[in-house]
């Protein structure tokens, strides 16, 4: 699969529902920041220096030994993509919005299954990222660790004995590691316990954000939990701490869902049924409405209130309903109304296909 296929499909490996705790943990992501020694950090990089970074990354990943270990990875410069295609990579969580600014100096390396991506010249020269379905932080870190070792064979990293990996922003220095899980927590939201749970998390050196990263709110009851501290702990400790806290939140969410099913069963079943009804029949659907209904439907699918809709499809829909995807699908710019109509059509089509398959 080439990058053009990536931007044409709303599906990605991380959306598959095979992972552990998939009813609550949507995906796990590990990202490591690395910089090349001797070059200024990306925000001060000249065009020619930026190309030099592209060149060394290409040399490192596009060779037989590397491909033998990690599969075929290819570097695509951001300027080779259309604005819509670039935006789709953001909507699929494969790159950050930062990679869209000054895109002439930026590039992305993607593996076919989209599990591994490397952002080139984002805030740091390299941001290695691995994203997997369910709670698989250890697996994601092991993958990043291996890739990092292989890259280091040909690249000189900016590294300091005392401070570890040097990064443009001092908040990432040390391990350069940011591990995160995306959690679906409708139960805790419904019983009004979400603030308590997330409040205690922030005291443990972890942060919580909405699904689309920094500065976004938690629409669709999706919360992104990540480590804040990158210095003074080993990578394994950081991952283990995040797994432990995630485990606790998962149990609280399960307890909340059980309590809801015990005490408000009719209400929960009703809202799941309504969500399915609207999603499979509505003709105009705003993004906010879709996100809310998909959250209700996901809860219903996890609790087996609806048993024929795979969680992976719901996760994929959460991405497919985003604006750039709809524009790509339509092949032209869209008015707000046209977008809402296409969104409703897309959801209907995907849900009804499942129903008739059964």
């Amino acid at each position, binding site marked *: 699969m080439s990058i053009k296929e990536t931007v044409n499909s709303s599906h990605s490996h991380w959306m598959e529902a095979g992972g552990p705790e998939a009813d609550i943990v949507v995906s796990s992501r590990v990202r490591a920041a690395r910089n090349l020694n001797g070059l200024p950090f990306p925000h001060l990089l000249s065009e020619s220096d930026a190309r030099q970074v592209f060149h060394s990354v290409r040399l490192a990943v596009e060779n037989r030994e590397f491909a033998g270990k990690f599969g075929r990875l290819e570097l695509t410069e951001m300027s080779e993509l259309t604005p819509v295609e670039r935006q789709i990579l953001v909507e699929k969580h494969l790159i950050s919005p930062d990679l869209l600014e000054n895109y002439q100096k930026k590039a992305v390396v993607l593996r076919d299954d989209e599990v591994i991506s490397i952002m080139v010249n984002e805030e740091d020269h390299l941001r290695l990222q691995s994203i997997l379905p369910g709670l698989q932080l250890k697996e994601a870190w092991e993958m990043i660790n291996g890739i*990092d070792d292989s890259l*280091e064979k040909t690249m000189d990293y900016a590294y300091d004995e005392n401070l570890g990996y040097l990064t443009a922003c001092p908040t990432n220095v*040390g391990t350069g590691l940011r591990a995160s899980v995306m959690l679906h927590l409708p139960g805790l939201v419904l019983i009004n316990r979400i603030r308590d749970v997330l*409040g205690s998390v*922030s005291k*443990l050196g972890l942060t919580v954000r909405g699904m689309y990263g920094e500065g976004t709110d938690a629409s669709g009851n999706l919360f992104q939990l990540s480590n804040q501290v990158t210095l*003074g702990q080993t990578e394994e400790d950081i991952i283990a701490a995040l797994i432990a806290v995630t485990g606790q939140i998962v149990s609280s969410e399960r307890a909340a869902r059980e309590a809801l099913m015990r005490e408000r069963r009719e209400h929960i079943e009703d809202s799941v049924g309504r969500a399915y009804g609207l999603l499979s029949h509505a003709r105009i659907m705003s993004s906010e409405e879709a996100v809310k209904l998909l959250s209700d439907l996901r809860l219903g699918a996890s609790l087996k209130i609806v048993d024929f809709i795979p969680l992976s499809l719901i996760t994929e829909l959460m991405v497919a309903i985003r604006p750039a995807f709809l524009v790509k699908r339509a092949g032209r710019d869209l008015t707000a109304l046209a977008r809402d109509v296409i969104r409703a059509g897309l959801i209907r089509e995907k849900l009804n296909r499942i129903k008739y398959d059964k």
Partner: protein
Amino acid sequence: MNCERCQERPAVVHLTEIINNKKRVLRLCEQCARAVQAESFGFLPQMNLHNFLAGLFSNHMASPFGPSVAGGQKCPNCGISEGQFAKSGLLGCGECYRHFGERLDPVFRRLHGTNQHTGKVPERTGGKVKLSKQIDRLKVKLREAISREEFEQAAKIRDQIRDLEKELAREGD
């Protein structure tokens, strides 16, 4: 006592944070406590990290040397000034860490509770780190010797640097 955040209203809330097993207590007024709480929950647009850093750093930058003059010192490698760092929150290159050195310590301690990396050591670069640090120190000495016009001494240091650089190149292979 006044709130540690706004320095204006009286502090009525104690907010405890534990980072890297180190406890930090903030004494805040009600408004700031609410803002801080909301920020860490991610319900409000996140506090701009860069601004926070810049504020922190400009204080530390200013204090030991009096009010900083015209953007302050510059990194000899990338040319970024203290003022630019304070503005953007981003350092310019790996050398900045060495150049601004100890003055970044309070930033690390505040953000991470420590200034010591205990995680991964890159296999190849790791061994070279010591050598290149030594070379850096010698280069500083070399500049000093030249500015004092002690050319004999400078030549000696130059030879030392050459030897170390050869060693470094061998390790790189």
